[in-house]
């Protein structure tokens, strides 16, 4: 699982595609906006944002689209970073909220200084001043993933849900989705335990191995809705040499992909971080330079957190589409970007 090299290899493809699109659009704006893409903290999931920002800056002629990371997963560090970037002249922000509500007071201040902001990859809790939330429909993704696991189990058995940081706004939604999918089998499939806070390497390693060690025979399936537990679970099952327990993970880490290939995992729910970064930057640039505003009655999706949600796309990777899933994601990104303006924005 070498995140750095993967980054390089995977950059080649989108660069090429983006260059084509940029030419097609032919409407490079020479805008002097400075846009910041800010995750909740250091985490491999957000790595593609850096490249997405560079591509968007090139394709849409934006002065700067920078990827700035707080040193730890702490809301006050993220808030401090945002406040400091405002001081440094950044005038548009794509933020993964460290806390769904905690972020709103910062966003309020940004909009008071008429600085637009978007919630990317994770939503802020309504009422919020973010223009809209553009990310994976985590609820839907977890639901589809659990359905895929139930299918792999043949419709019955006991499953354990490996979830991310409790402080992450999406975790609660994912836990509800897993419960809903399991309840639809009215008793055939039961959720034995939600193990939370496993989105850090050491905690994941310790908890997942302890779980498998202690309850290996009583579990039939694992649904992981966080990046790191998916990787650790794939490694542990391979180490155990156990193909009985089915695993459906999330994200497309090489170890998880290899586990699917070798039969230790049934599949994984891919998300579209690159698209979130790329389209996010594109929209923020339009909002910051005032050329467009968000349509009030745009076709947003309603979720438990917010009424203005746009899905950045998700799909199940299994043996069938393991080789081609990247192109499918690319198609999704280009479709969203191309149709975004007339679907969601009113522009001068």
């Amino acid at each position, binding site marked *: 699982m070498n995140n750095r090299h993967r980054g390089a290899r995977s950059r080649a493809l989108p660069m090429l595609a983006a260059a084509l699109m940029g030419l097609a659009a032919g409407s490079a704006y020479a805008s002097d906006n400075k846009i910041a893409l800010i995750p909740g903290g250091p985490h491999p999931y957000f790595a593609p944002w850096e490249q997405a920002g560079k591509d968007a800056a090139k394709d849409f002629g934006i002065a700067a689209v920078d990827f700035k990371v707080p*040193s730890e997963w702490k809301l006050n560090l993220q808030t401090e970073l945002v406040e400091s970037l405002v001081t440094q002249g950044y005038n548009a922000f794509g933020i993964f909220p460290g806390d769904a509500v905690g972020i709103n007071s910062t966003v309020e201040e940004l909009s008071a200084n008429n600085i637009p902001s978007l919630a990317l990859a994770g939503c802020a809790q309504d009422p919020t001043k973010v223009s809209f939330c553009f990310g994976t429909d985590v609820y839907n993704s977890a639901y589809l993933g659990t359905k895929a696991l139930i299918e792999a189990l043949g419709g019955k058995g006991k499953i354990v849900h490996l979830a991310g940081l409790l402080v992450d706004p999406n975790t609660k939604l994912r836990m509800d989705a897993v419960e809903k999918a399991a309840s639809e089998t009215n008793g055939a499939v039961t959720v034995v335990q939600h193990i939370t806070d496993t989105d850090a390497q*050491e905690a994941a390693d310790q908890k997942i191995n302890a779980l498998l060690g202690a309850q290996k025979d*009583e579990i039939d399936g694992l649904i992981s809705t966080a990046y790191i537990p998916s990787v650790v679970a794939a*490694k542990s099952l391979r180490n155990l040499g156990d193909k009985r327990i089915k695993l459906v993970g999330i994200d497309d880490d090489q170890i998880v992909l290899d586990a699917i290939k070798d039969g230790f995992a049934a599949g994984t729910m891919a998300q579209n971080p690159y698209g979130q970064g790329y389209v996010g930057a594109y929209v923020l640039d339009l909002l910051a330079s005032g050329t467009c505003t968000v349509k009030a009655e745009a076709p947003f999706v309603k979720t438990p957190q917010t009424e203005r949600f746009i899905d950045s796309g998700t799909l199940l990777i299994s043996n069938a589409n393991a080789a081609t899933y990247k192109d499918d994601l690319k198609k999704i990104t280009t479709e969203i970007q191309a149709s975004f303006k007339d679907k969601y924005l009113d522009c001068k």
Partner: protein
Amino acid sequence: MTNNMTLGQRFLANEWSALAVAILVGLVVLASMSPAFLTEFNLYVMLRSFCVVLIVAFAQMLTLAVGHMNLSVGALGGLVAIAVGGMMEKWGFPVPVAVLAGLAIGAAGGLINGLLTVRTGINGFIITLATASAFTGINLGITESIPFYNLPAGFVAFGTGRLYALPYLLLPPVLIALALAFFLARTVPGRQLLAVGGNPHAAELSGIPRDRVIVMAHTLSGLLAGAAAILAVAQLGSAQPSIGVDWLLMSFAAPIIGGAALTGGHISVAATALAVVLIVIIQNGMVLAKVDPYWVQFLLGALILAAVGLNRLRAVRAGGA
């Protein structure tokens, strides 16, 4: 005096008797509660998580021996972890070279702690709190919180390799424990270290170079923190900047529960090791019993207070020895 105590009194008097009993009770209860407890894989999982924690406890134990504290155990560990990871991934150092360099960095960190503490004569707590922040700063500065993922296969294999229930990772901690017990019991510097802890003024009057001994204790503590970090990198298979973040409480809990006197001069390698076993059993037991993981945090604090209370009781009963 001690010579007329019966064997039973002698057994109860020493530190690790209570721990041994607690561990036995724990094992029996958990084995009966779930058959999976004694399976090969679960024993392997427990032993694996035992290794790193034990060396971290030894690192703190050495500074407690001279009556000092080392708050930079975790931060130094994190720094050594990314240093070793970086050396192996970025500069392609062979594993033994990277490991030795890592240990050297750990020792150097400990040496800095020792020299600063002795030179300023200030309580080790504040100095190591400051150096802890400095080490973390260097760590984050270099890595920007991005781990080093692809480490040499052999090194990672060592982390996950096992012989039935015995992880390869167990070898270094066992060797370190034996070496430490021997060092403290039979070598001159080891005894001097305990002497300085027991009665610093008396040690100085007896010609023991007190400052040098304190610096030695901190240096060894840093070295062990480095060793623990290298094991953690092997275990996780990647050099995470966050290694060591949650070591502080554990590094104090085990030696104290193992009867270490806070004023220095009295530590027990065996009791500390047993204390770590007890803590690991509790943690594993709780996952088994599907208990909320936050109870571990709560129980650790309770165990420390219980151990401290027990020590006070034993000291008062023995006539304020």
